[in-house]
């Protein structure tokens, strides 16, 4: 009897505590490109503010935006901007077009195997490669071998950004092998001498970045801090936080901290680039 009473009391106490714990937590979901950055921000902020719980998960920018629309996250991390139809769906459900807050800058790096002699491409050539119109490395100054294309799943913001800015909204070639996450793309290209892949600049280890040229006669630019910040790297992009309404309370404290000098310095440590 006494044991049952103790068990019942413990259960009741846990159930009572749950809403208290849940109420203080901020959920952050979305971009795989930003997930490590989001986790580092959350860790540092939680260390400075005990009692605050921030939960960060990845899944892709598309997943994060879907979660924002479905109401299952407070903040969405996205490496691309929200599309018109996503904003309209958000308005249908929450009567808001969403609040967009740029929080950092990223350079979309293009990588090849370290043994590949090709060192630079124009953005147009990169587009032709991923559209499937250029199929052999010898067409762009490399060895006579088929180009093996690696890319991201369509839930990825990196995918969306690449499609919009490099392919100009045309369809990817059917021969692009899709991998879950930038680290998987780097891994695949590192094992494949004829491979080419794209992803966030922070993850490029073990492969070589290609210099990108805006046009055939422009200088080739590598994605480093200076070129991404001043926009001379053709494939630099802002990273966003999206919210349903203007940040308030705990969420506002977190967002303000991310935009502060301390938060931006942490972004540089992780390998991204500050807003200014």
């Amino acid at each position, binding site marked *: 009897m006494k044991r049952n009473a103790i068990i019942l009391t413990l259960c009741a106490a846990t159930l009572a505590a749950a809403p208290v714990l849940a109420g203080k937590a901020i959920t952050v979901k979305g971009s795989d490109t930003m997930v490590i950055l989001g986790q580092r921000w959350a860790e540092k902020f939680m260390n400075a503010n005990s009692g605050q719980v921030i939960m960060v998960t990845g899944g892709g920018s598309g*997943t994060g935006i879907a979660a924002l629309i479905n109401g299952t996250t407070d903040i969405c991390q996205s490496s691309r901007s929200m599309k018109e139809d996503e904003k309209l769906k958000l308005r249908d459900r929450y009567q808001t077009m969403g609040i967009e807050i740029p929080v950092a800058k990223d350079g979309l790096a293009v990588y090849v195997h370290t043994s590949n002699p090709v060192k630079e491409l124009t953005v147009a050539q990169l587009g032709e490669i991923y559209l499937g119109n250029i199929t052999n490395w010898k067409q762009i100054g490399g060895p006579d071998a*088929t180009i093996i294309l690696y890319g991201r799943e369509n839930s990825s913001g990196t995918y969306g950004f690449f499609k919009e800015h490099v392919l100009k*909204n045309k369809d990817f070639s059917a021969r692009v092998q*899709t991998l879950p996450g930038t680290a998987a793309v780097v891994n695949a290209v590192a094992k494949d001498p004829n491979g080419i892949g794209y992803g966030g600049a922070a993850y490029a280890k073990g492969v070589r970045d290609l210099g990108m040229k805006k046009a055939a006669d422009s200088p080739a630019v590598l994605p480093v801090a200076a070129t991404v910040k001043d926009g001379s790297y053709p494939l630099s992009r802002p990273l966003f936080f999206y919210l349903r309404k203007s940040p308030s309370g705990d969420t506002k404290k977190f967002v303000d901290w991310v935009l502060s000098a301390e938060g931006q310095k942490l972004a540089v440590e992780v390998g991204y680039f500050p807003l200014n």
Partner: protein
Amino acid sequence: MSRSLTAPDSPTSVRARQRVRELFIEWALRACAFSAVAGLVLIVVFVFKEAWPILSDPEIQKEASLAGFFATPLWQPVGEVPKYGLVPLLTGTVKVVLIAMLFAVPLSVLAAVYSSEFAPPRVREVLKPAIEMLAGIPSVVMGFFALMVLASWLQSVTHSPMRLNALTAGIALGLGIIPTIFTVAEDALRAVPKSFREASLGLGASAWQTAWHVSLPAASAGVGAGVLLGLGRAVGETMIVLMASGNAAITSADPFDSVRTLSASIAAELAEVVVGSAHYSTLFFLGALLFTVTFLINVAAGAFVERLRKRLAGA
């Protein structure tokens, strides 16, 4: 000296209480059994309900319709003009499953023949659990093994341009279904009456002739069931193909091309979709399709086994 019927310790009331308790326990067990069935029915209803707009809602049909699935050769559901071509997904699934079956069925059936007909008892005691331990490897670990080790080894042997292709995924999938087919086939072969074997050997047949012409046909119902079980598992397997097949939606007959299967598409894309969109309904349509195919395979397996059993019993 008769006691009242309502007296607490009378034999009649004890029996009455026992009857009530028995009835209660029987209803509780019945509820357990039906809740399992209810769970299955609810899942099926959910999947088909979410897929239904493809066939019924004109708004959704503007973007994704049954005709549209076969009108375009591309699977690009995210973009300015979404394209939901099912042909690359269907050919991809068929290719991987075919390679897996061609790899797994001879290996597992012949291993079962060896284990039940030729192996000395000591060897069988080690072989059977060893193969069944293969079933204990989680499919995600199998997929990781294929991605890291098998793909590189196969590329060095076959010199195929694409490292992650239908062959890699098919072989890894085959490794995954070997224990399924082996276990059922081996049990079926062991269940063949010893008299069959002894009669054949007594008439002068060799061990292999006995195995191939007597035991295997006698056990064909069970072996067939095992093969169909493996087929059902291969069609629905997700993690191995997601990691090892490259996921490129290519339609071709080349085993060295990357493939995208139905199950991998669902796993990779379902997390991103907005609930209620055409993409969402299409992915559930793929799920309903997978369920229907697996269900039909199981029904066919049952009918096949029944027919063989009747034939053998009649003959």
